């Protein structure tokens, strides 16, 4: 019942956020905060009770067994880490949107988003996984379309149509897989061997669906638009959760299910990953729009995740999952602050900024910390993630991967250059008397501090995260031999 309640409680309470706005404008945000705390507490309970290996907290709701249309929920260490991200981000996003316009509709959609999101990470039935996966698009469409920036409608439409089109391939892959195995259940599929030619077809079809969500080059074009136009808290959901769905799906439903086929395609994945890392890095270098730059750096980091997954070893997969955690925390912080910078300076463009450190030192200090973490400063999550991905890739692919650290240097390059132009240096004319250029209120600083505390904590004590899922990864890694 725990997992089902984590899915249903947000969805059932969602309409009350909408209705409650009429009674009290503050009600929706407190409801959303309450749901966030509920998710955090239940996740904490699950972490404490988790036996350490394998699937736990299994729940099976039979709906139509002959078609295997059963809601099968269970989590292992990997899902647990991602559920923890869901819970953490649900709280920080609620705090960041404390003064949002139309709070009723906003938090209604936030709650409608969180329930299916838990479902994506907790479902062991492929069809239900797809149902949850697809439903997350709808709230996200309205979030971008209603609360977004100037070009929001274009971005929302592009986001919905593009990702829905990709899901079609995923669905086709699911159908083909079902017709050959007559089951959607992860555990049954795991035992069953799938014919290699079928597995290749299914792998490619499903990979298109996951690759668009991650996103990797050349399927990334929806992301910069969606991120730039989305309000900052929603960018956090996009980067922190929606992209993780793609990586998680790739790991759970492709690499674990078809280890040999994945091994066959591993060089292809690694190629795409390196391409993504470099392409996104160079695009970020050339980008003048600060949020778009962060969006490209987000794609760059997801390239690292894919590289770790493509290594097909326990070390590589562990590193990729860790990188997912680091990405969720660090990039979320950067998106939030990029949004605040726009809010304060009324410009998106780095070339029109300068010296804002002098006016808002606290916010900019946090920005610098976030940038350093994204670059991979030791002591932050970014360092552990990138380093372990690179080590795993070296281990598997050998000296070819020497180029990846160069991309890391590229990341340092675009971020530092941006800092130097936008944050440090002399204060730009006109910013002197800009009324809006002042520090944030406490409630908006709090989530930023939480992100920093979290990524420094997991950066210094990475074992907290690693220990949760390492036994699971090691167990699945037996399949790759």
């Amino acid at each position, binding site marked *: 019942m725990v997992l089902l309640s984590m899915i249903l409680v947000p969805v059932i309470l969602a309409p009350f956020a909408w209705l409650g706005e009429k009674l009290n404008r503050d009600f929706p945000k407190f409801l959303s905060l309450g749901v966030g705390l509920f998710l955090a507490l239940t996740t904490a309970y699950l972490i404490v009770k988790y036996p350490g290996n394998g699937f736990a907290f299994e729940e099976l709701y039979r*709906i*139509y067994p*002959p*078609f295997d*249309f059963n809601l099968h929920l269970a989590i292992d260490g990997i899902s647990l880490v991602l559920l923890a991200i869901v819970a953490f981000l649900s709280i920080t996003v609620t705090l960041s949107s404390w003064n949002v316009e139309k709070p009723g509709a906003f938090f209604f959609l936030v709650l409608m988003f969180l329930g299916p999101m838990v479902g994506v990470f907790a479902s062991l039935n492929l*069809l239900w996984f*797809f*149902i*949850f996966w*697809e*439903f997350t*698009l*709808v709230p996200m*469409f*309205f979030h971008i*379309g*209603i609360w977004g920036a100037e070009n*929001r*409608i274009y971005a*929302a*439409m592009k986001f*919905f*149509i593009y990702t*829905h*089109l990709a*899901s*079609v*391939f995923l*669905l*086709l892959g699911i*159908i*083909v897989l*079902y*017709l050959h195995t007559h089951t959607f259940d992860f555990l049954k599929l795991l035992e069953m061997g799938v014919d290699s030619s079928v597995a290749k077809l299914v792998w490619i079809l499903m990979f298109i669906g996951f690759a668009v969500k991650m996103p990797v080059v050349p399927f990334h074009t929806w992301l910069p638009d969606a991120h730039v136009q989305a309000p900052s808290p929603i960018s956090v959901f996009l980067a922190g959760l929606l992209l993780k769905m793609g990586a998680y799906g790739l790991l759970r439903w492709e690499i674990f299910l078809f280890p040999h086929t994945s091994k066959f395609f591993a060089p292809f994945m690694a190629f795409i990953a390196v391409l993504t890392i470099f392409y996104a890095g160079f695009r970020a270098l050339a980008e003048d729009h600060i949020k778009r730059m962060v969006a490209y750096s987000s794609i760059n980091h997801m390239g690292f995740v894919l590289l770790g997954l493509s290594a097909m070893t326990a070390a590589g997969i562990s590193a990729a999952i860790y990188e997912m955690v680091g990405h969720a925390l660090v990039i979320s912080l950067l998106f939030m602050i990029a949004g605040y910078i726009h809010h304060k300076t009324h410009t998106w463009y780095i070339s029109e900024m300068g010296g804002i450190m002098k006016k808002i030192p606290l916010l900019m200090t946090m920005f610098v910390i976030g940038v350093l973490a994204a670059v991979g400063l030791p002591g932050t999550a970014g360092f552990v993630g990138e380093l372990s991905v690179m080590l795993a890739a070296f281990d598997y692919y050998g000296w070819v991967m020497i180029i990846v650290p160069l991309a890391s240097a590229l990341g340092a390059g675009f971020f530092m250059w941006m800092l130097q132009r936008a944050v440090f240096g002399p204060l730009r004319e006109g910013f002197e008397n800009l009324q809006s250029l002042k520090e944030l209120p406490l409630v908006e600083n709090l989530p930023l501090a939480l992100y920093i505390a979290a990524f420094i904590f997991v950066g210094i004590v990475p074992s907290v995260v690693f220990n949760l899922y390492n036994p699971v990864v090691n167990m699945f890694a037996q399949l790759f031999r």
Partner: protein
Amino acid sequence: MNVNFLTAVMVLALTGAFLPVINRIFRITGLAGVAISSVGYVAGILLIAISDSGNEILNNFFVTDEVSRLIGVLIILASWMLMSVLYWILNKDKYVNEIIGAVLISTAGALLLISSTNFVSLIISMELMTMPTYLMVLFVFDDRAIEAGIKYFFNGTLAVGMLLFGVSLLYAMTGSFEFSVLAQKLFKDPLVMLAAVFILAGFGFKITAFPFHFWGPDVYDGTCPGVAALLTGISKSAAFIALMRVVFESLPLFGEGGMSHQLTIIFAIIAAITMTVGNLLALAQRRVSRILAYSSVAHAGYTLVAFAALSTPLSVTGILYHSVAYMFMKTAAFLCFAVLLFVWGAKTMDDYKGLGKREPILAALFLVFLLSLAGVPPMAGFISKVFVFTAAVKAGMLWLALIGLLNSAFSVAYYIWIAKQMYLEEPTLEKPVNDRKDRNLVLIPLGLMAAILILFGIWVNPVLNAAGQFVSGL
């Protein structure tokens, strides 16, 4: 046919017939009319619920099985909701009871159509379903409605003419009206083949399959949208079920020596063209009613995908599920359009701008129906597409499934476009055309339809059980 089922049909038809008569004595409008007609609907549902026991009658012509029982109940439900909304919209109209009477009689015809197992009963019940709708299309009585009515009448008679010609040809060749004789001689005698083509063409008109789809959008657009909801939702689904009976009960499809592959390719090509044409034309429309009309052409294509997969039993599941889902989502979408047209006078995409702010709940319901049509979970439109395309892949037509899924993905563009107009744009319409105090009443039937759609999107058992029984009875 079960006596109770037949009584249900009678009760519905008689309620419809007496409604105008009662109106002559006690002027009934609005809620009173809903209450009186609801008696007929509730009695119909109850009688169908007990139609698994009791005497059998007319067994050569009609059959009462799990499919006719399930679809029968769902048709009555959809028609009930439609009736309530129509009464609300046409509250002031002089002839409202006549039109509701026609709805009831047409529903009775649909109930007969889904249970007919013989070409004679098929044609009779199809006429019973269609005749009242000729009248209803003319109901608004302006220039456009007259054009639509004439177009509909000529196309309808053309369809039934083709059907009759095919059936009489079949009778001349074989001396029988049974579905099964069609199969025995189909690939031996070219004239029987010709008869089959004419029968298929007759159905093609009813379900607006390419190349017989031209009348559909003009008629749905020209007439009162409440009537279009009946035509495109209930009538079309009933025609699909009837076609399913013709195809599956006449041909030995499954197993060795099945006669499927010759038909498969015909259905597959028609399906691919129908859905592509429907979606492409829908993308080009500016009027919301025409978008919905062309999307109904596209949905005929999806159902035909399931027909194309007729070598596998999953095909029946796909046809049944898509007909059920389609019946509710299309009827409800047209009804939402009807209410918005009545209250706000909203016709084109530009009029729809900002309607989400003006009518929050109604627009949200409309959104549910549109997303269901687009195939977004957890609504029934999603799971029905899963069954349809699973059947296609199972029958070895990965290409058809891919075309269908790509179509479905591109069709999202115009459904989400309506959502965009409703929620993301600023309102253009300032004042409602007809401001009614009892605005919230109309939300009840529409809300029920949304609930049914979500329920059938998750609780798949009734339809799958009915499909299983139908397949095992072949």
